[in-house]
């Protein structure tokens, strides 16, 4: 069932626009190119990140894109599914899983960009690349936990949708996408790692930069905070679900 809902999302995505699948590549590619150009060529700020900076940026932008799309979509799930909620006999969580998986599949489909970036910079990852799928799983779990809180909250108080968008925008800068965690003061590193994305991005990058990608203590904090978020998400969702159903 979930598979069908996801297919429906992707089908809509790929049949509405003439360029279809190309958009999956072009959107993050464009963003990565702009960021790379501004920070690397214009500002000469390569030292914020790790070299090769182009690869570093791509490894930040692609998963960020998944996160952004999934979270944005989660603010709209229940409004979109209003008609279905009236009669659907399936668990309500399915609507949330749906948007996260749809955007996740788009993320996987955008991975050719990563291969191109690897080819351009001629960098081969080390054995820790096996942690790449682990990063995906962790990102999925973190997104699911967050969406369990955001989706019902926005459904009940639409104003929160705006708030979520602002938070997402600032989160882009609070997350080590353009820089590494090592660039911020050491005392703040573990505080910053409360953001689960810190751990997620560290794990994505660890295959290329085994030593610099993320300090182990920050990773531990991130994993712990991911688990806390999921627990909170499950509790919040359980409490808000009856009210979400009433809105249908």
């Amino acid at each position, binding site marked *: *069932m979930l598979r*069908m*809902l996801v297919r*429906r999302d992707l*089908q809509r995505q790929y049949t509405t626009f003439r360029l279809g699948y190309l958009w999956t590549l072009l959107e993050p590619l464009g963003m990565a190119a702009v960021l790379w150009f501004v920070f690397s060529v214009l500002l000469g700020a390569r030292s914020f990140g790790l070299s090769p900076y182009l690869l570093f940026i791509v490894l930040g932008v692609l998963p960020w894109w998944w996160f952004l799309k999934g979270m944005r979509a989660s603010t709209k799930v229940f409004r979109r599914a209003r008609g279905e909620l009236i009669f659907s006999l399936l668990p309500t969580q399915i609507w949330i899983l749906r948007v996260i998986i749809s955007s996740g599949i788009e993320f996987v489909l955008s991975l050719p960009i990563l291969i191109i970036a690897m080819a351009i910079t001629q960098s081969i990852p080390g054995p820790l690349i096996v942690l790449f799928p682990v990063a995906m799983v962790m990102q999925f779990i973190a997104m699911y936990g967050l969406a369990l809180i955001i989706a019902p909250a926005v459904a009940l108080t639409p104003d929160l949708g705006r708030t979520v968008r602002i938070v997402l925008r600032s989160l882009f800068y609070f997350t080590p996408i353009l820089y590494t965690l090592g660039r911020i003061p050491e005392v703040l590193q573990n505080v910053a790692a409360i953001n689960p994305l810190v751990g997620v991005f560290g794990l994505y990058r660890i295959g290329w930069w085994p030593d610099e990608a993320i300090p182990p203590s920050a990773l531990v904090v991130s994993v712990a905070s991911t688990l806390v978020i999921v627990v909170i998400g499950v509790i919040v969702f359980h409490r808000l679900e009856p009210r979400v*159903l009433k809105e249908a």
Partner: protein
Amino acid sequence: MARIRIEPNLESAVDFRHVSLALPKRKRRQGGGRRQRLRRLAGETRREEFAAVTDASFTVHPGESVLVLGARSAHRRALLRLAAGTVLPDSGTVERRFLWVPMIDLARTLGRGFTVRHNIYLLGGLLGMTPDQVAEFVADIADSAGLASKLDRHLGQAPASVRQKLAWTTAMATNAQAFAIDEVLAVGEPAFRAQCFAHIAELRSRGVTFLVASEAPRQLDAHFDRSLYIDDESRIHALDVDGGIERMRAARRALRSDEDPQDSEDDN
């Protein structure tokens, strides 16, 4: 992690005990958008609610078919959703012996951009069928909706009556032991309606349980054992079919002569 709880040992098909439910009012533009926004700024996050069902206690036995009446469609629909479990009561308990398939506005969710086949799978899935079960019926469903030759074409701008048929036949294919039907019988072509009645009659003889909410119950009375009437105070009265219909007509007349029909709702 199925959401709907079922008690297989329950004797009745569905059992309401002191059930109350308030639902948020549909947003109506009152005093313009600005006033609403100001109210929200002032900290009012909860929308106004109306009592849909108040302290309802009743039982529907397996094999019974019960007409749900009441002057307001929101009340009737709330009762059906409570029975099926797609909305949870604020207080009280609803227990059911088996899955109730809610047939409420099904046609609205059929997607234009998708094939007939895809739509059937999706709707069937939402109503609890597994893909294998749908696969068994998909040809039959399309056939009885008159879409057999268009199974792999987009639903497109199919007329409402076709969508209605598609939704109806898909829901019926669930082979459920109980259905909660809203309004489906009030619309559609006469021929199809007759077909629906025949279908209901056949299922009734096999012991299937029905809760049917209707706006125009006149042509239905032969198919039902009794009725539940929801009055304006959202209280439920168990009546026979004629008594329920009579009461509904009276309430309608009163409503029509009312100057502002919204007033009585706001009093709740």
